């Protein structure tokens, strides 16, 4: 299982891919999926740094990760944004393109999911992460949101 630094590295890589996708309007729906995988790695870095949560997550899956977020008081704000992003990313991944085109506009993706849920998740995770990781994440996120 990767450690917190490796999760942050993966999150930063996914943020780079997300930036690339957002520049291509025709692939904008998949940017929700990328945004979710950024969030997943940031959340896993947070969980890695919490010994109690890390133990619960051992060998876990999406369900275990979401349950830790939902049932841990200090992660509540992360949980709300995370599960909405997760639900929508699954819709985009598993339903056919013709449906998802009418489902989400590029504007909604940017405002609701990138500037909204993803930004909120990263901001809410900051208190649990080292300063350097926060700076790196914020720097990449600022480029994407502007």
């Amino acid at each position, binding site marked *: 299982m990767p450690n917190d630094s490796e999760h942050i590295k993966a999150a930063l890589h996914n943020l780079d891919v997300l930036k690339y996708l957002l520049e291509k309007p025709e692939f904008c729906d998949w940017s929700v999926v990328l945004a979710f995988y950024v969030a997943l790695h940031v959340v896993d870095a947070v969980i890695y740094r919490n010994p109690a949560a890390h133990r619960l997550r051992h060998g876990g*899956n*999406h*369900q*275990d990760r*979401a*349950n830790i977020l*939902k*049932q841990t008081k200090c992660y*509540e704000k992360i*949980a*709300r944004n995370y*599960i*909405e992003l997760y*639900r*929508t990313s*699954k*819709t985009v991944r*598993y*339903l*056919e393109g013709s*449906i*998802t085109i*009418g*489902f*989400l506009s590029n504007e*909604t993706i940017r405002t*609701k999911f990138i500037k909204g849920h993803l930004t909120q998740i990263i901001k809410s995770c900051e208190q649990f992460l080292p300063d350097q990781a926060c700076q790196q994440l914020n720097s990449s996120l600022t480029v994407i949101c502007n």
Partner: protein
Amino acid sequence: MAVSQSKNYVRIEASNKDGIVFVETTDGDRFFMSHEDAARACSNYQLSKDSDKLNIFLTDALEACRIRKRDDEQLKKFQLLLNKLGTWLFDHNEKIHKTFLTVCEGGLLLVIVRKELKYDEEFESQVTDLDMDIAKDPDFSEIPFSVQTLPRCDADGYESFCNFVWTLEYMTRNAKR
């Protein structure tokens, strides 16, 4: 019915109705066991003549009780969850086309197919409230549960989210309270 005096032994007490014996284990768990099960445990003890084995025989009988009790409690919680979800779905019926309760990743997954195609921010927020509410409810916190909303889609779309062996469909559209 004999009652052991040792604090290390299972305690059993005859109740005054329905042929039921009350049993309290050394760790404080309490069960009701049929006279028949308790008598069988004692009878096995008589045959073995081994004083240590009464506890073993009772423990075997208790294990069966424990499983029944746990199953009963889980069934009760599951029924409570079904009712809670049913109430929520009824209250949000105007936006819902179909709903399924299925299993996914070792937990329960509520699949809600909306009537509209366009992303509905308000509805998604309400679904998140439901999901969080269930996760924090002591009655349901041990049941791994999540929700998947889908925009309007045909069976090919929503069936890919439903386990083909275990899926329930909620029928709330024409329900009346």
